[in-house]
């Protein structure tokens, strides 16, 4: 078992008073609270910080912890932490009533303070509702899709309804945290995160695809084959199209609860990498013939 230095975790001196400890905890709790933090390790850091605070805010617990800490520093614990012989764990009865964690503090904490003080009330208590993010490919939103997801140790089969959008929640009844004392299990909510696609960008229910076109295609117009989520379609490119022109392909976006979104094909005029002599001659001919000045506005 690893010895936990609760003072170091909170970034305070071992002789810090209650006020300093409380204020250090408040600051770190705000920083790492999993409901607001974007830190990848927010949840484990928050747990560590609240565990440290729960151990140090109660004078009796803190005294016990300090005693053990001194023993550890005296080399009694060797490499890993071993409680001293005859250690009975914390027996005090106070401080239990305000325990607010979910009972998942470290083994170290449990061995120190035991698990008994956590029993707040008897009778059934429902399990917590959980929310996890579920990455979803754009292709999987076209029709109802069955997916397997792993949540902790479990593998769940889920049907994602067609048209499910970014940020939407899907509820799995009874798949959240287990209840206590015969209480019902909580529910699991999957929060959909659409995975960035190599070709399509998403704007609400609309899709955007960038279509590279040659300068002469932009000038002369013609047919261009454009990818959609359900295969390629032929699109008419109007003559004399500007770079960045958006062509709307109605109903070819993401499925929605009401109407499907649209697909916007955005033209991007691309120059060839190399021009041979003949091509150069043709461009020169065009330059001599055309009176076009793209910087006329600057005059």
């Amino acid at each position: 078992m690893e010895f936990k230095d609760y003072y170091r975790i909170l970034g305070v001196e071992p002789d810090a008073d209650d006020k300093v400890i409380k204020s250090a905890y408040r600051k770190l709790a705000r920083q790492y609270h999993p409901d607001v933090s974007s830190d990848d390790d927010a949840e484990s850091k928050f747990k560590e910080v609240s565990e440290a605070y729960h151990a140090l805010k109660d004078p009796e617990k803190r005294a016990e912890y300090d005693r053990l800490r001194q023993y550890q520093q005296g080399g009694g614990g060797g490499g890993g932490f071993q409680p001293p012989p005859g250690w009975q764990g914390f027996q005090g009865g106070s401080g239990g009533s305000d325990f607010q964690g979910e009972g998942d503090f470290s083994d170290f904490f449990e061995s120190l303070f035991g698990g008994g003080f956590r029993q707040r009330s008897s009778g059934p208590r429902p399990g917590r509702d959980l929310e996890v993010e579920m990455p979803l490919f754009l292709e999987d939103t076209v029709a109802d899709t069955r997916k397997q997801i792993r949540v902790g140790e479990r593998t769940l089969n889920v049907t994602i309804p067609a048209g499910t959008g970014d940020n939407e929640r899907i509820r799995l009844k009874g798949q959240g945290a287990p209840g206590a004392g015969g209480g019902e299990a909580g529910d699991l909510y999957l929060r959909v995160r659409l995975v960035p696609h190599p070709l399509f960008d998403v704007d609400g229910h609309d899709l955007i695809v960038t279509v590279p076109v040659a300068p002469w295609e932009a000038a002369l117009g013609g047919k261009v084959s454009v990818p959609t989520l359900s295969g390629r379609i032929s699109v008419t490119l109007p003559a004399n199209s500007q770079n960045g022109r958006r062509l709307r392909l109605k109903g070819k976006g993401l499925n929605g609860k009401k109407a499907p979104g649209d697909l916007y094909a955005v033209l991007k005029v691309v120059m060839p990498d190399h021009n041979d002599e003949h091509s150069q001659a043709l461009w020169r001919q065009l330059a001599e013939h055309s009176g076009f000045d793209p910087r006329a506005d600057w005059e």
Partner: protein
Amino acid sequence: MSNRIRSLTLGELSQRVALPVATVTEIVELGIIEPQARDPHWLFDETVVVVVSRAARLHRDLAMDWNGVALALELAEDNQRLRRENEALRRRLARLLE
């Protein structure tokens, strides 16, 4: 296995999140969640349960009042939306410039 989302009354919601009705009422009045129907009485989309639970954790863990919780949730949601929007715009920009 996915289930249809159903509606909850105020009483059912407060029972689900283990908070007094008065507290859930305050959470609604602060705009942390919105009822999907108000007439003849409040009805909530079941997915608000996770939002209320998140609000309750912030209230408890950070000793914030409900006003502060409302503000924190709003800012966190805005922040996440803006970050995702920024990522999406950067991807679009890269396609045009590459």
